[in-house]
């Protein structure tokens, strides 16, 4: 090996890489970003046209209020799941939390005659219990997955089964009804024609979207999901952020469950679990461009995913599609939307301009 050659100092002259003009490609990057965010827009437009053709009742305020009311519970859970997916995690048990948290709360507040525990707590206390149950489940998941280094899929699969069992076991498969006003308010009240649940869901979407774009913790979520080792090397407390996101996701799932309980003014022993809500949650998030690999996704996409599923469901109802076929069509539409979103938008990215 020649020994004298690599002395850095003898290279001498200070040359500098040429600067390429960056304006054109910066604009291009921006356009691609915008395109991705509205990738589902054409699909939504087509669906609305289809809906208008299928039924004159489709393009009415009350129908859209109905879609909003039915989708808001799902939407809130989708926000939670999207956050968890963005840190590179996965939580199947949001479905269980969605059922168990309102069930435990309702059980503590409704009278014995409505299959309550007989403690007859105040409904406001019940809402606190609901949030606490959600937080506790999220914390347990987070600790097992992050500190215990267990696989998130398996942990939350096990957790789903445990939660569903608890939910059914506590009330012995009965349905809690007669929910007191304050407890049912979120899911049942309306301001004018606009359901309160829809307003709350929209607020949650907007706040989460702003948080992800403009808050340092929100940005850290993208960093942790995009490359955990690099985030750690940059001094980000990745364990704390991951656990925090699991807790937040579960609290959001509990709130979604409260909306659903209020909407049907009852809590069954199988809320969430029975409908298999988690499949719709994942479908909405992924159609909306949230990556299952973490680090990518945004709230505009997630919201479009939720709206799309809501409209499809509504059109199928209005078209009087036979109950026997409704799921097959529903699933086919989800697959179609996924392919279309992929073709139009490519792989979606984080919210960086």
């Amino acid at each position, binding site marked *: 090996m020649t020994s004298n*050659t690599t002395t850095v*100092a003898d290279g001498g002259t200070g040359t500098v890489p040429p600067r390429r003009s*960056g304006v054109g490609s910066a604009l291009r990057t921006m356009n691609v970003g915008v395109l991705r965010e509205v990738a589902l827009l054409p699909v939504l437009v087509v669906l609305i046209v289809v809906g208008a053709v299928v039924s004159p009742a489709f393009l009415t305020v009350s129908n859209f209020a109905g879609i909003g009311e039915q989708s808001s519970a799902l939407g809130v859970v989708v926000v939670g799941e999207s956050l968890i997916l963005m840190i590179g995690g996965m939580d199947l048990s949001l479905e269980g939390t969605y059922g168990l948290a309102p069930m435990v709360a309702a059980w503590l507040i409704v009278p014995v005659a409505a299959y309550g525990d007989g403690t007859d707590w105040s409904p406001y206390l019940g809402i606190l219990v609901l949030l606490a149950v959600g937080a506790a489940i999220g914390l347990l998941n987070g600790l097992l997955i992050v500190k215990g280094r267990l696989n998130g899929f398996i942990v939350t699969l096990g957790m789903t089964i445990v939660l569903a069992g608890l939910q059914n076991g506590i009330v012995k498969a009965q349905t809690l009804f007669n929910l007191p006003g304050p407890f049912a308010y979120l899911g049942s009240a309306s301001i004018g024609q606009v359901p309160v649940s829809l307003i709350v869901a929209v607020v949650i979407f907007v706040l989460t979207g702003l948080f992800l774009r403009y808050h340092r913790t929100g940005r850290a979520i993208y960093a942790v999901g995009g490359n955990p*080792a690099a985030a750690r090397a*940059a001094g980000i407390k990745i364990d704390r952020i991951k656990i925090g996101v699991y807790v937040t996701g579960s609290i959001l799932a509990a709130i979604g469950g409260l909306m659903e309980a209020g909407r049907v003014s009852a809590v069954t022993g199988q809320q969430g679990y029975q409908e298999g809500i988690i499949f719709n949650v994942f479908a909405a998030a992924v159609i909306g461009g949230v990556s299952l690999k973490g680090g990518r996704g945004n709230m505009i996409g997630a919201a479009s995913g939720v709206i799309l599923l809501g409209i499809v469901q509504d059109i199928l109802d209005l078209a009087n599609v036979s109950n026997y076929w409704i799921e097959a069509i529903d699933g086919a539409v989800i697959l179609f939307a996924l392919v279309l979103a992929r073709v139009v938008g490519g792989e979606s990215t984080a919210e960086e301009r």
Partner: protein
Amino acid sequence: MTPSGQALVEVAGIEKRFGTTRALRGVSLSIKAGQCLGLVGRNGAGKSTLVSVLSGLYEPDAGTVLFGGEPAPRSGNITRWHEWIATVFQHSMIVPDLSVAENVFLGAMSPVVSWREVRDRTRDIMREWGFDIPAQTLCRNLSVEQLQVVEIARALARGSKCVLLDEPTAALEREAARRLFERVRQLTAGGVAVLYISHHLEEVFEICQDVAVLRDGELVLAAPTADLTRDGLVAAMVGDVQEPSAEPNTVTANTVTVRRQASAVARGDVVLEVSGLSSDSSRGRLAGVSLRVHAGEVVGVTGLLSAGVATIGRVVAGAEEHADGEIRMRGRLVPPGQRDVAQRAGIGYIPEDRHAEGFVPHLGVAENATMTITKQLAGRLGVLSPARRVAAAAPFTSRLSLVSSGPGQPVGELSGGNQQKVTVARTLAHEPSLIVAITPTRGVDVASKELLLSSLADVARGSAGQDGGAGQDGGAGVLLCSDELSDLDICDRIIVLVHGEVFTEFTEPPFDRDELIVATEGISQEADK
């Protein structure tokens, strides 16, 4: 067999665009049987694109690829392509949980696998070419060098007449690199053509008969190595020297006098004190290492890859835990294995592998460069405006002459050297009082190398930033852990590790390369250097 004289692989007028970037502009070159052709160029010069075209991964926009005078098969038809040319990529393409034999015949096994045949043929190839890796070993248990041999064997097993080696020595120790050169000579002697891509010009001079230089996507030079000097080659890679006044923005980066005047360094207080550090890390053990770094001082740590050079850097930076020993920053104990705590104690960290730890690929340049200082940038309630982020990143990206299409361009799209600049910017941004840099110039072109090293030297000298600069009392300490001798030129002292122990220390720059090399091998000099 192709007669030597006729080109085995030939490309003519290759053009390749990515969006608005012309990655290759009419590149033509040819390789003959038994020839070893070096391909050099700075990061972003188009080497990787050319490798991808030659590997059949990219279809060129214009131009032709000829194999033995015939047009090449369609790109994407990897099996046909492999009969002519096979690439040993920088990142290993070995499946760790399969055996050597399975990896050698990966993707080339018959539908019904005859294990005996696969093993026997692997053994034959290994024997024929003088390699010595048992066919049934699990690749997980092999060293980086052995994995490379497996990849070469894979190319030979497919009958490839040309082997493309992309930065083959990047992860090899000096001895292993020497053995690799032997193998390359063996291959060329056997009539195989080798295209050798490297940042290490001395390697090119050592084993290549000819060298081709790419600059900004163009082939600017192709000549026998015997006719060239190193400076001539560097000049061809870098291009004509620009007038400093023509590029006012980049004047600050124009400090290439990297070698520091030892006498000019005033030693400050002790910043870092490490005592009795032990570790059983898989990257190399440590057995009771103690050292100190003063403010304003660049301390090099070097040794063979397995000697614990990277380990001590990672342990000090809090990127990995250690078994025993203490790390103190300005006298205060730093708890082990907590990167965030270490950063708050003032330790900056430039990791060994930038892809693994250096940046988040799909986030923008500005966001990555300011990832360490979001707390300082955020206002009340943690709100962080993108504009502030861009403004905070700007001085660092301009000082390091970082080339990107804008502060929002995802770092994953940048060339290797620019990615490394992002990682360095991220570290400088939080104004550390100690910077731990592990092999900071690995896989980086010559000009970027000088910039990166001079920026580290500047931080130690305390002349770092326009706004603020580094650390207290003038300069930060730098702990530079590297096995690349050219990195160590900026050091004030060099500590040599052998088997995880401090073997010797060089305190008087300039350092003698031969002495350093001898010391890393654990051979002592009688003098108390």
